[in-house]
Structures are given as structure tokens and as C-alpha cells.
């Protein structure tokens, strides 16, 4: 069943891709092939392979229960927040929080995970910024 949904999604993706390709405005100076041909070929093969996937599906993969999916969703949200707030709060604080969250969700005790988070963050900061000289996001506190 998963594969049928996946195949249907692939077909929609192919259609969308073809539509988006046709929206490309061609310049008056174009080579023989033009900017549309290659993406159109891709869309066709994408559609064909999606159709095959939908018509001849494999066995269902083992999907995690809803609670695990929520877990992954939450991790994604944390990562997005991390990406958004990184330039604002600075590398060390953002990384410590994000790493602490992930360690906690992977089964470390809360207090210990805070410690692990701080260690990870400071460790990366020392190695990558102070030793290797990589420029990391600088927050209002200067680190």
C-alpha cells in the first residue's frame, strides 16, 4: 500500500515538474535543444517509474507507530528552530540546547543530557572554532 501511495505521489510530482518546466520563459537566444528538453525527459521517466512503482508495489515497509513518528516530527521541529535561531542566539547556546534535546529523546536522563549537550557544544566550539578557525554563528554574547 505504501508503494501505491508513493507511486501516486511520484506521478503528481512528475506532472508538477513537467508543468513547472513549461513555465520556463525561453530567452530569444537559445541553443538547438533549449532549456526545456532535458527537464521534460526527466519528468517523463519520473512519471513512468512512478507508474511502475504504483502498479507493481513491493511489500510494505515496517512503519513506526504514531508515537515514534511524532518523535521524529518533534526532532524536525527542533532542528528547524535551531536553524532559524542559530544566527540570533549564537552557536554555543543553540547547539547545547539542540544536542541536549536529541540526547534526551534518544534515552539519556534529563540532567545528564543537559550536561552532554553543553559538552558537545563546547567541544565542537573549541575544536572547530578555536583550533580550526571555522567561523561559527556569533550570538549577542560573542559566542
Amino acid at each position, binding site marked *: 500500500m505504501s508503494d501505491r501511495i508513493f507511486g501516486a505521489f511520484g506521478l503528481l510530482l512528475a506532472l508538477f515538474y513537467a508543468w513547472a518546466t513549461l513555465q520556463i520563459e525561453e530567452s530569444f537566444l537559445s541553443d538547438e*535543444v533549449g532549456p526545456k528538453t532535458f527537464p521534460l525527459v526527466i519528468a517523463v521517466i519520473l512519471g513512468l*517509474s512512478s507508474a511502475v512503482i504504483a502498479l507493481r508495489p513491493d511489500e510494505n515497509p515496517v512503519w513506526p507507530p504514531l508515537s515514534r513518528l511524532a518523535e521524529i516530527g518533534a526532532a524536525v521541529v527542533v*532542528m528547524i528552530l535551531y536553524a532559524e535561531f542559530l544566527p540570533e542566539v549564537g552557536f554555543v547556546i543553540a547547539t547545547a540546547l539542540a544536542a541536549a534535546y*536529541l540526547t534526551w529523546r534518544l534515552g*539519556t536522563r534529563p540532567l545528564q543530557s543537559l550536561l552532554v549537550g553543553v559538552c558537545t557544544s563546547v567541544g565542537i566550539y573549541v575544536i*572547530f572554532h578555536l583550533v580550526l578557525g571555522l567561523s561559527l554563528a556569533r550570538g549577542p554574547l560573542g559566542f
Partner: protein
Amino acid sequence: MDIMSSLGDGFLIALTWQNLGLAVLGCFLGTIMGALPGLGPSNGVAILIPLAFTLGLGATPSLILLTSVYYGAMYGGRISSILLGIPGDEPAMMTVLDGHPMAKAGRAGEALSLSGVASFVGAFLATWGLIFLAPQLVKFALLFGPAEYFALFALAFATLGGVSSTNQAKSAFAAMLGLGLAVVGVDTQTGVPRLTFGEVHLYDGLDFLVAIVGLFALSEVFIFLEHRHGEADADSKKIEVGRLTPSWAMLKYCTPTMLRTSVLGFVAGVLPGAGASLGSFISYSMEKKLVDKKGTFGTGDPRGVAAPEAGNNAAAGGALVPMLSLGVPGSGTTAVLLAVLLALNITPGPLLFQNNPDVVWGLIAALFIANIMLLLMNIPMVGLFTRVLMIPPRILMPIVAMVSFVGIYGISGSSFDLLVMIAFGVGGWVLRKLDVPLVPIILGTLLGNTMENNLRRAVTISNGDYMTLIDSPLSIGLWTVAIVGFILPIFVGKLVKGRMRARRDAEGSTSD
């Protein structure tokens, strides 16, 4: 001896303190990454690419660092296979079969050192193979025009899925997804933006490094979150390591096996789409058929340890041949290395040997050096690496995620790229659940633009005649191989893959 003098020059380049230091670092990190279940050569290299860039290393030093990681990971995979019975990465899964029984019998030290020697033999012979075969392939590749290149890329995509997926439709889907992503951005020939939907960040196209780190490294973190196996599997089982050196008698006993499987593994590595996993698999199967008269394979036969290790390390070297000489990688990890070259503005292929001989020969010399270092590191220091296995994934995986973020942010300094990386991470997780191979996606994003340019150049040269694509005997030949290579696995691939599956744990890992 033209080759020998070039190799000598290569050693002059590789033997600087900086390069030697990078090789030591790469070998060490690589072995650790290979040893840790969940991290393999491709995600190991992927995590370190941004680092190599942001350090501002030149082309040769970065390649030395990353290929040392690559070879190191190939060595390291065996450690957890033998000690824990869990392959550290996919190519090492065959080593479990005989290595783990040996460890249970109290011969873990012997198994580790023997497999270290076997890895060395495999990688050493394969590097010689690379030296002699690559220049020949280059001469051949100089005959290629745009039409032939287009056919060659098609061949690479058609065959890449071959062994790594049971479902050819899914590997075709993955390849098209990758090519489709490569199209995004301003068209290089006419200057019109394509599929950018007005988003300025997309005008330069998607950075393939972002895609690689997201697909390979971040998706691994999601896999761990899904199963929440945060505990190291090493805790409960304490295994006596025993003596750390193999006896001469055992080495002698295994030598024919190592030599045969090195050759076989090398050939498997050179062929497109096979890679190290297949190399170790067919090496083991062949040896079992050939020398296992008493049925001792699978119960702790030392030859059963030597065979897959020599095979997979030889395949790792073999996979570099098409990558360097044609610009078409033979496996997942070499695809990642190709990304490194492209990002350094070096186009692999026949011209690489003419324009940047320092890069090629420096790299080859570095492979020899890395190999010797790995042998030295892996026999006496194996105890250190086994201790690394005790780090539980619940601490390790967040570090992997954070290092990925740091690396990507270090390159571009933009939150947008981080968001794109997260999207690739989630997408990679879903695709892995659906058994869609990730390597064709990477290869598509890497080669998409070159492939399209070759198509357009070929057709433009012939004034819009598309028949030019199948005009020369060479391109007809390439297309034939591509079609056969795509169709054949539909019948044969299931068989091989089914057997490989049957023999390994359900432990998920990106293919090498």
C-alpha cells in the same frame, strides 16, 4: 617507466608534514567511523567534506584527508562485525559470518589482526591496479565526444541501481529525482532561471553538499530516533580479545585466499554500480565454493574472515578507477568523493590526468601511505578502537547531527541551507523506509548539469539532429550496455540481493 616517475612525483607531493598529518587524522577518524554501527564510509566522508572546505585546504590535501577516511572506514567496519556480530557498515556484513564465531571462540584478536592484514593486501593490490588500469581507461576516454559522454552518464545511471536495489523502477525514480534537482537554478547556456519559483536562494542551484550531508548523515539520525536504540550494543557482551598477532602459519594458510579475492574485489569495484558490498559478497561466496571442502565456513574459518575483507578493500580501490578516469563513480562513497572534486573545481575525467597530474598522483601516493598507516594503526591499536564502540549512539548521534549543521553552516553561513539540509534528511529517511536507493539521487545532483551540457553540445554540433546521440559505434555500444545493465538486474538482481539480505542482520545502513 612513465608511471613510476609519476608515482615518484606523487610521493614527493604526499610526503609533506601537513599531508602526512592529514592522512593520520583521516585514517584514525575513518577507522572510528567505520567501526561504529550506523556510520559507514559514505556518511563518514559526507560529514567531513564541509570540514575540509572550511579549513581552506587545497585540492590534494583535502583529497588525502577524505580518501584516508574512506580507506579507514573500510578497515574499521570489520571491528564491530567481529566483536559484536553487527556490521559496522554494509561492506563488512560478510565478515560477521566467520569473524564473530572466531571472536566467540576466544580468537577475536587473531580475527582482528588477520582481517587487518587482509584489508591491507586487498587495498594494496587494488591501488596498484588503479595505477595501471586508470591511465589505460583514460586513453580510451579521450576518444569520447559529447554524445559518448551523454551515453556514458546514462550507462552509469542505468547500472548504478543494478545491485543496490531490488526494484529497478525505484532506482530509476531516484536517479530522475537527482537529475531533476540538478536542473534547479539558472540555466548555464541561456541564462534563464529554471524551477526556482522566484526564490533567490535557488538561483545558484541546490548545493549538492547540502543534499549529501542531509541524505546520508541526517537521515541516519532519524533512523536512530525511530528505533530509539540509544544504547550501545557493546555494553552487555564482553569478549576476550586474545592474542593480537596472527601466526605465520595462519597467514600463509590464508594467502591464496587473500590474493584471489583481492583480484575479484578489484574487478567488482571497477564495474559501475557494484561497489564494495558486492565485492565482499562475491569474494566470500567464491572462496566458500572453492576451498571450503569441510564445511567450516560460517563457523569461524580464518579464510572466511580474510576473503570478504580483502574483497571489500580491493573493491574500494577499484571503485576509484572509473571515478578518476571517467568522472563516473562506481559506488556511493566514490560519488561523495566526486562531489569533493567538483566542489574544488576539479573535473575528473581524462583531462584530470593531463591538467592536474599532481592531484592524481599525490592522491595515489597518499593511498599507499594511508594503507601502511592503517595497517600499523589497526594491529597494535585495535584495543583503542574497540573501546570507541562503547560510546552509546544516544550521545554519538546528536554529535553527528551537530557536526553536520556546523559543516554546512560553515560553508554558506545561511540558515536557508540548513533548512534545505533538514528537508533532505527527512526525505532521505522516508526514501530509505521505502527502499529507494539514495546513491542515484546523489549521482544525479552531481552529474545532472554535465550530462545536460553534453546532450546540448552534441545536438548543437550536429545542428539539432538528435540522431547524433547514437551515431558512433562507441555510443551505440555504451547505450547497449546501459540497456542490458538496466534490464538484467530485474531478473538476476533479485537473486543476488535476496541472498545478501538473507545473510545479514536487519541493521540498516546506507549502501557503501
